[in-house]
């Protein structure tokens, strides 16, 4: 009896201890945001388009467990045009924030899992340190940024027209897209002519804004069923009762994660002679046509932040984060190459581009990045192989007149 009683007490103690631990963890995972912004790791408040969440989670998970530069990203997802306005007008976030948990708070968390949220109890709201648009700012406003707010060009975001795997459709030409999304039920195409099976995004979202510019149908004129999130477009397409009539719009990186159930349509732009996929074939991930100007639906991501007279972010955490994402050297040196996260989530670093443009759907011109990374990019994408012309290197000494960048000799 005494022995049993002792066992009972021990069990009770363990149970109580576990409950206490769970209670503590639960509080950290669903507590007040001020508990997360008041100390280490360094907090950084981000407002972002939802296409950039995979990058936030990928690079955020590395930053939060970094010993070189521990940093915690707290973020809110919204439309690109909304966040641009927020940065222009100094709006603070008052709603709950998602955040990257530390390994201590949740040892099981990784970027494939949903992020926890905290209750926003920050007095007056959380000031946005950096906002990430996935379209040119000029697509949302022609007003110049207010003094002290700078625009930093980030990785390139591809956009796409997608259909269910069961559809027989393989491509869409710009004129066809104009009629599909501009005329809806009355487009007389015989293919996509039922608006209930056309899954679009809200007019402030980058996916719609960028594609709208490409096909010449203003965002407010689009026909179809507006879906709040990219994941809803995926769900609507995969669950469609009429796959042949169904079409949706997605960021290419979202499509890349859903290739088993969706088909990305090759796109032929106005004045173009053939349709192309963003990759050199439907089964590769090299983004060759997007990089060299054959696949046109893309926009740069644009980072909006407070900057000094030289255009350098005044917040040291923002500077570190943007340098990492742009593949620039960082001080202190980070544990991994920031471009790894960019490529891993399906974005294309600006340094791997061969063409550029100055506004959404604007004419393309040839582009030679100041610090090219084409060899690194082509070797790093899924199934990627560096071209034979790309030599690996440890420093500039083996690159002749070129430079060693991200492990490969580049021309400059």
């Amino acid at each position, binding site marked *: 009896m005494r022995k049993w009683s002792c066992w009972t007490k021990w069990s009770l103690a363990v149970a109580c201890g576990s409950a206490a631990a769970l209670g503590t963890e639960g509080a950290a995972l669903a507590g007040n945001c001020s508990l997360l912004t008041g100390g280490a790791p360094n907090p950084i408040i981000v407002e972002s388009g939802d296409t950039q969440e995979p990058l936030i989670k990928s690079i955020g998970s590395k930053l939060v467990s970094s010993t070189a530069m521990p940093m915690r990203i707290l973020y809110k997802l919204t439309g690109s045009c909304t966040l641009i306005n927020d940065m222009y007008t100094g709006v603070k976030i008052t709603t709950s924030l998602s955040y990257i948990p530390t390994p201590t708070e949740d040892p099981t968390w990784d970027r494939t899992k949903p992020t926890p949220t905290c209750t926003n109890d920050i007095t007056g709201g959380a000031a946005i340190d950096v906002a990430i648009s996935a379209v040119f700012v000029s697509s949302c406003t022609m007003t110049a940024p207010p003094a002290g707010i700078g625009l930093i060009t980030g990785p390139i975001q591809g956009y796409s027209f997608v259909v269910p795997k069961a559809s027989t459709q*393989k*491509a*869409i*030409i710009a*004129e*066809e897209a*104009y*009629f599909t999304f*501009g*005329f809806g039920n*009355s*487009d*007389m*195409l*015989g*293919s996509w002519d039922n608006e209930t099976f056309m899954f679009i995004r809200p007019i402030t979202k980058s996916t719609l804004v960028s594609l709208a510019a490409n096909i*010449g*149908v*203003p965002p407010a*004129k689009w026909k179809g069923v507006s879906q709040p999130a990219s994941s809803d477009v995926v769900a609507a397409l995969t669950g469609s009762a009429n796959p042949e009539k169904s079409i949706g719009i997605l960021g290419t990186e979202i499509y890349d994660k859903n290739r088993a159930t969706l088909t990305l349509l*090759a796109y*032929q*732009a106005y*004045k*173009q*002679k*053939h*349709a*192309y*996929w963003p*990759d*050199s*074939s*439907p089964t590769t991930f090299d983004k*060759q*046509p997007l990089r*060299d*100007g*054959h696949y*046109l639906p893309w926009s740069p991501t644009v980072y909006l932040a407070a900057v000094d007279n030289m255009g350098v972010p005044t917040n040291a955490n923002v500077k570190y984060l943007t340098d990492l994402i742009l593949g620039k050297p960082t001080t202190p040196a980070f544990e991994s190459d920031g471009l790894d996260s960019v490529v891993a989530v399906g974005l294309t670093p600006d340094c791997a581009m061969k*063409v550029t443009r100055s506004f959404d759907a604007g*004419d*393309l*011109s*040839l582009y030679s990045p100041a610090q090219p990374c084409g060899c690194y990019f082509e070797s790093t994408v899924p199934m990627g192989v560096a071209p034979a012309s790309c030599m690996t290197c440890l420093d500039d000494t083996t690159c002749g007149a070129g430079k060693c960048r991200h492990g490969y000799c580049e021309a400059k």
Partner: protein
Amino acid sequence: MKTFRLLTALAFATCLGTAAIAAGCDSSSDTPHDPAKDSGPADTSTSSDGNTSTDGNMNGDGGDSAARDCFTNPQNHFEIINACTDAQAFDKKPSLPLLLPDGALPPLP
């Protein structure tokens, strides 16, 4: 008068021939494009599409309109988007009943 009729007939025949070639070009529907057609020898001929001033060398032998559709040394937007490439392409010629008679897009409803 006889000369005028001859010239008219000649012009009509030329139009018919051009239309026939154009119809031939447009007769393809949904087909994968053969990138091999984009890899022929370069020449210095310029584009006949639109009013773009071109410096990019155009692929082809000067007689095969099907092969004369890519640029080996693209310099401007039109040439870049139609540059020669080994990427897989797809040709689709959907019927667009709402296109205006001159081929322009109608205004949105």
